[in-house]
Structures are given as C-alpha cells and as structure tokens.
C-alpha cells in the first residue's frame, strides 16, 4: 500500500506539479489579499458582526481545494478562504456573505464564514463545530446511492473541533461506510485561546486515525509543496476506494481568532518556531529561489486587482429589504402562503 502510494505521488509530481502549484499559489495569494481587505473593511465598520481569517493556513486549506475536482464536495470551516477560492468559490460570494449582499447565495440571511453553495459543490457550514463531518458523509452516501462514482468529499476542522462528539460520530460513521471522505485537521495549536494541552492528551491528533480504522497522514502545514502532495495523495486514495483519510497539518494561526482578538495568548516560542512560519512567505521565497519571483509577483498583482474589482462590484449590490423578504422557514409554509391558505 505504502509503495503504491509513493509511486503514485512521484508520477503526479512529474505530471502535474507545476500547474497544481500555480493553482495553489494563486489561491493562497487571493485568499491572503482578500482577507486583508476584509480586515480593513471590518475596521472601517463596513462589516457588522465578526471577521474570521485563515492567515497562515492558506497552504493547507488551499491544497485541499486544489486536490479536489469539479463534482467533488467541499465542506470548509472557519479558516478556509484559500480552499474555497481554490475549489471555485467566487471572491464575490465571500464578499457578499460578509457585506450581506442580497445577490449572494446567503442573501444576507446568513453571513461571514457561514456560506456556501451546493450547486458549486460547497456545503454552507453551520457554526457548531464538528457538524459538517456527518453532513458531508450524508452527501457522499447520497452520491453512492445515486450511482455517482469517484466523487470525493473533503472537510476541514481545527484541533479544537476534534473534541466534539459530532466530529467523532461523523468520522466513525464515514469509516463504517468506507466513504470517500477526507478530513483535514488544521492543528494550529490553539482553539481560540485554548492550547492543545487543554484540548487533548494524545501525542499527535493523527494518532486517532487508527482508532477510527482510517488512514492517517501528517503534514507540515507551513510548506505548500508538502501540503499539495499530501492532500492530493489523500484525495486520490479516497477516490480510489481506500475509505476515509485523516490529514493532520501542524501550523499556526497568524492572526486572532477573529479580527476582534489580538491573539496575545499564543506562545511566542511557537511563533518563532518552524510551526510559526508564514506559508505565503515560504512559497514566495522558494519561488524566488527557483527563479520564479516574477511569476509570483504577477500572481499577486492579479489577485490584488481581482480583490479590488470584487469589492467595488459587491459594494454596489443591494442589501436585503425586510419588506420584500420571504419570512417562511419552510417551503411548505411559503407554498401555503402563495396559495393564500396561511
């Protein structure tokens, strides 16, 4: 098994790495720049509620999005702007959620990270951590029953989310059903302010894989090349019928839990360690080292232009109007009202 996988990895490195790394690098940059813009909009008071960024986690998240194909399903969590953009969420939809545009898939009814569009293969998350694992498993069960083959589901979680009963039940169910599900845990050392040692007692969260009877993979979440390779491997294995895959990436959240949080509780020793590296900088300097600095600069410029255009566009979009709103939480309710029989 291990040998076959390694061979597959080498082959894929030869064939598609450059294109894949370009997709990843671009997604990382687009996410980073869009999120920086979201931070400014928040500080300018243009976003109500909260802003939750994935700074420092773009490589791991983006690699998940890059590893998927059209027709696959992505169930992102809080810090997955890069994965979303890589998988095909339009920047506009991210902005629409935050700015409450009526034209976004959430129509201003839900906002910020609680967004998605299943017609694009992206499940809209609910806040309750761990909940999306079983939901994604359900999508995959449905696809299996409908006879749709070789479709993979990938979902993300933090170290903290692994403590939820939902996470456990969902992953166990997926393992029993041997579903093509990849669960990516971004272990950034903290859940809000709570450090790993108050969250779990195992040496490494990847140690849980065996207990679920699934394959486990560790990855340095600060290294885009390693992330791309490991995530692609996990997705391929899931697609190949090897059942759920648990990928655990180590990295650091290079921002607060939300933009209201200064994150001062993070241990400065970890910040200065390898784990505290900024994956975007890692990629930039490696690109420069490889003589591709210019390419990187052009990706960045294009991303910046895209962000600016998207902000201008979405800022001009209408916000919801309570008087035009359909206040029916059920479809049968709406129908009843339409037919005048409420």
């Amino acid at each position: 098994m291990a040998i076959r996988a390694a061979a597959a990895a080498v082959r894929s490195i030869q064939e598609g790495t450059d294109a894949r790394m370009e997709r990843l690098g671009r997604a990382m940059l687009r996410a980073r720049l869009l999120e920086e813009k979201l931070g400014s909009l928040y500080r300018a008071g243009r976003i109500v509620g909260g802003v939750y960024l994935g700074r420092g986690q773009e490589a791991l998240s983006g690699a998940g999005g890059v590893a998927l194909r059209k027709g696959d399903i992505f169930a992102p969590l809080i810090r997955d702007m890069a994965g979303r953009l890589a998988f095909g969420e339009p920047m506009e939809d991210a902005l629409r959620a935050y700015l409450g545009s009526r034209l976004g898939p959430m129509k201003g009814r839900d906002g910020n990270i609680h967004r998605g569009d299943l017609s694009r293969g992206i499940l809209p998350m609910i806040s309750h951590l761990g909940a999306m694992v079983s939901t994604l498993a359900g999508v995959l069960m449905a696809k299996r029953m409908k006879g749709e083959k070789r479709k993979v589901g990938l979902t993300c979680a933090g170290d903290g989310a692994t403590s939820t009963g939902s996470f456990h039940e969902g992953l166990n169910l997926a393992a029993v059903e041997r579903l093509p599900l990849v669960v990516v845990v971004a272990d950034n050392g903290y859940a809000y302010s709570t450090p790993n040692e108050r969250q779990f007692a195992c040496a490494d969260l990847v140690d849980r894989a065996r207990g679920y009877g699934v394959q486990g993979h560790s990855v340095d979440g600060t290294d885009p090349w390693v992330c791309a390779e490991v995530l692609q491997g996990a997705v391929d294995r899931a697609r190949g019928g090897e059942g759920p895959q648990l990928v655990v990436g180590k990295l650091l959240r290079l921002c607060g839990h939300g933009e209201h949080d200064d994150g001062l509780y993070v241990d400065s020793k970890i910040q200065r360690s390898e784990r505290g590296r900024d994956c975007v900088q890692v990629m930039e300097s490696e690109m420069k080292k490889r003589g591709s600095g210019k390419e990187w600069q052009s990706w960045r410029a294009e991303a910046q232009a895209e962000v600016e255009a998207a902000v201008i566009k979405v800022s001009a979009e209408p916000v919801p109007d309570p008087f035009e709103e359909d206040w029916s939480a059920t479809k049968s309710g709406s129908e009843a009202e339409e037919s005048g029989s409420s």
Partner: protein
Amino acid sequence: MSVTYLDAIRSAQEKALASDPTVFIYGQDVGRFGGAFKATKNLAERFPGRVIDSPISEDAMVGMAVGAAMEGMRPIVEMQFADFSTVGLNQMLNHAATTYWRTGRTCPMVLRLPSGGTPGSGPFHSQSMEAIYSHYPGIVVMTPATVEDAYTMLLEAVEMPDPVVFCEHKLLYYHLKSDHLPESAVPALRAQVVRAGRDVTCVTYSAMVHEAVAAAKELVEEGYEVEVVDLRTVKPLDTDTILASVARTGRLLAVGESWPWGGASAEVVARVAAEGFELLDAPPKRLNAKDTPIPYHPNLWAAHRPTAVRIAAALREVLRY
C-alpha cells in the same frame, strides 16, 4: 384484515421505498432486525442497500440525513426512542431546520420518533418531544393519532420539501387497529374534528385523542356533548379548525401528554385567547402531564399523565363555569 398503527407505519415506509428511489431508511437496528419496534420489518430484504443500520450516533445520523437530503435524497431516520433524539437535536434544530431559509435548498427528511409513555418505560423511554421541535422555525411536526393518519401522514411527510419530525405514539403501536389502510387522506397540515359536540371543544393530539374521546363518551351520560379536535400536526398549527370549533362550543380544553410549560397546549390556548377571545364563554383550560420526569412505576405513571378520567374532570370544570 386488521392493521395496527405500527403496521401502518411499516406499510407507509414500504410504499415510499417502492415508489420513490430517493427514499432510504437509516437507524439503529432498522436493517435485518427490522428495528426495535419492528417498524421496518422485512424492508431491508425487500430494498437491499436502502434500509441501513447506523452506529449509535444520533448526531451523525441526523447530520448524515441532512447531507443526503441536500443532495437530493429523502432519508427517513428512525430514532430508537424519541428520548434519545436530544443527542441528535442540534443537527435537526440548527442544520435541517435552517437549511431552506439560509440557503434556499430544501432539506426533505423525516425523523421518526417513537414517543410517549407506556407502563414501566420510565423517564428515558416515554418522552413526547413535539414542543422542543416545534419551537424552532423550519420543521413540520406531525403527531398522528390513528392508524389511518399514521399511514397517510407518513407518506405525506416523506413527500414534503421540509424536514418533518414524525412523532409516533408507542402506546398505539400494537393496540390501535383498523380494518384496512386508507385509500384517501386528509391533508397532513389540517386538524380534524374527530367527534362533534356543541358544549365544549377538547383540542388534543396523538394518544390523548383516544383519552379525550373516552372522556367525551363518559360525559354523554351527564348530558354534555364534547367536540374533540385532533391537531394531527402541531407545527404548523391549524388555528382555523380550532377557532371554528370554539366558535361552535364557546369553551376550550387543550390536552397534551407532554409537560405543562410552553407546549402545544399552551400554544393552542394562547392562540384561541388572542384570536378567538370573543368566542369564549368560559376560561380556556389546559391539562398536561405533571411537571416531573415520567415515572417508572405504573401507579405513578397513571397519575402523571392525563387520562380519560382526568380529562373528563377538567372538561366538567370548563363546562360548569
């Protein structure tokens, strides 16, 4: 032929599986074993791969159904007992129920809850949870009282575009019988006058309908005609039918097997008081279970829940005002 309430539920599921390829059943022991109450007996054999045993993971069971429903399937999830659905509640209240309004995508699924008290079943195998599910927006909550309704309402539940909580009453499973399954159906979202009367309206649902009818019969000897309204579905509530009945009788008793604070009986009384105030000739009254856990010992249980005797007493109070 004789069909029980449980047979009706089994038959409805069989029919749904046969007529719609997107329907499947998921739950603990529902497969070969046929479920703790045998509501899925022989279905796994007849529909291979579509009647699936789950791990003991209520949260994931409901979460799975949400995903499958969003992806176009129509899952039916069986809880082994309604009481255990508390650990799957979040996926129902915050995921299934919010999906349509938040995302525009429907989430057509049915959560079957074997509900209600039986002798000796105690605090954790007796609960009626309709109040919890009805309070949150986005869910239809059905509480069938008859063999016919168990059948036709479950079929309608499976076809609805919304998440439906289907509260089956365990006390009716084996005892309640009918001659045959119905050919036609009263729409699930409509309440129904199951016994006409001019003196007082007794609004109730699920197993309590039978207690109310028994109470009504008792009061005939005293010269009273009690109109019994079976809510059938408690969310949304068919206020029109209730008000029309109160308009005829001028008096109201609302009965629920669940606890007193804020359940269906409070909702009924609050609506009638607000929207039918002038129709009332006497204070509306409520009767519910006592506000403690549901007792194990049959002596205590019989005193804890509303019964025909206690309903008759409450009706007399309303009548004699």
